[in-house]
């Protein structure tokens, strides 16, 4: 048993103290839900031209979904839509086990989620915030069939 592979210290830390927690008044709001488990995220995204200038979230969910949302907000702030889209694609590949091994360095701290690939039932937890971001900003990465409902 190697739970460390899933619950990396950085993930536990973001679960305890999520970054960019809250709402941005007047910004674009999107609610993401996982109907299977009832987890949800409320994401506020401020976009200036093509750049994501600010992003915050609130919600309720497991350590994986909360930490993923928290680390996503850190990694996309200041990025263009297409840069954020590329990050999601890399992240998606990482958590579904389709990415490079070792993981692409461009993913930065998001590489902590590599262990999710060994827990197929938890992929949806890791990607919930990213799917909400996709809706909020309109970039398009298709959910894969392995993520379930």
């Amino acid at each position, binding site marked *: *048993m190697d*739970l460390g592979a*899933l*619950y990396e210290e950085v993930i*536990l830390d973001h679960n*305890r103290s999520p970054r960019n927690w809250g709402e941005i008044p007047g910004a674009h709001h999107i609610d993401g839900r996982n109907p*299977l*488990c*009832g*987890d*949800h995220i409320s994401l506020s995204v401020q976009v200036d031209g093509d750049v994501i200038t600010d992003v915050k979230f609130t919600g*309720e*969910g*497991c*350590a*994986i979904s*909360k930490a993923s949302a928290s680390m996503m907000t850190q990694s996309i702030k200041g990025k263009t839509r297409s840069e954020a889209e590329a990050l999601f694609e890399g992240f998606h590949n990482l958590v579904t086990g389709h990415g490079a091994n070792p993981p692409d360095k461009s993913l930065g701290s998001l590489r902590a989620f590599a262990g999710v690939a060994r*827990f197929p*039932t*938890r992929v949806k*937890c890791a990607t919930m915030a990213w799917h909400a971001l996709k809706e909020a900003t309109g970039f398009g990465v298709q959910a894969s069939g392995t993520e379930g409902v």
Partner: protein
Amino acid sequence: MATLTERSGLAVSGAGLDVERIRADFPILGIHPRGRPLVYLDSAATSQKPRQVIEALTRYYEEENGNIHRGVHYLSELATIKYDETREAVRRFINAESVNEVVFTRNTTEGINLVASSYGQKFVKAGDEIVVSQMEHHSNIVPWQLMAERTGAVLRAVPVTDIGELDMNAFESMLGPKTRLVALTWVSNSLGTVNPVKRIVELAHARGIPVLLDGAQAAPHIPIDVQSIGCDFLAFSGHKMLGPTGVGVLYARGDWFIRLPPYQGGGDMIETVTIEKTTYAKAPSKFEAGTPAIGPVVAFRAAIEYLESVGLDAIHRHEMALLEEATARVSALRGIRLIGTAPGKAGVLSFTMDGVHPHDIATILDQSGIAIRAGHHCTQPLMARFGCGATARASFYLYNTMDEVSALVAGLERVREVFA
């Protein structure tokens, strides 16, 4: 014919169940998920199956398979007999007056949908009220909402108290001249609360209101006597009581199945068909359109007989001993909040742990081969009532042991370590 007890060697000692001998009947309990012995604490979701049921299913397909109620050949006749023998076994199991009060469905959900659709079509109009409760499974909420959308009826929900019981005063006050039906669960799948169904039926019947009971969590654990309870409808599922998936039961008292219009049309439910008009078969056939899950229905009889041979009273005592031990030891852990603490509840332990989401609890336990349920348990209104989006739930059945309770406790201690 040898009784099941003789054939399977089941034995009940004075002190309780001979759990080791029962466990030997359940092949799946020997598997090692994640390299660890399986600790299956999710029987409220679905029970495991004894080899008697698995063998009955295999035997059906190897020796008895034919379509029912339509052929004159040997296999059709045999399958028809076997299928209807299960109906008689169900009648006996719930002490229904007649086999014509027993209809096979796919599951509890389909039984409730049948009543919502057929009863709604004939007896419900705009402004009428259907009484459910805050503790219902979504399957006893959504079918009524769909029916309310079609008819203009209104859904009212009995509130739940802090310990997880129905507020019976509120229930009584909700019953009025507009109430057309009461649809309540017998045992809560999330809390384990056993509702006072006999009292519920008395109160409703005193006002001429029929009652449907969701028996999904009751039938596996509680001796049922529908004539004593007096309910009009009772729906339950085979797969939660040692039977195969794909089989459910809808009981309807007396002439209800005669008064209700058909639910689905098709073969087997007709008397004569012309392009202009069809006359329907009598119940139960009227509500069993198309080829049903014959094999699973046939095998379901072995599940009923298994439960009868062990005895639901003995099973209940065993579950209560496990629940008592688990409740004491789990609630002694740091940061645990039990959800549902009604006296006399069924073998369900629902809880949250400070700072740890139930999904993370379940994932960590799963790494030790321990299967519990985490989530909203298809009872989102109830979760909202208790201010939590989800709980972790361990549920016990006849094959669980005190060692498995210890494994659960050790697993929860490990969760604490990971999330220290």
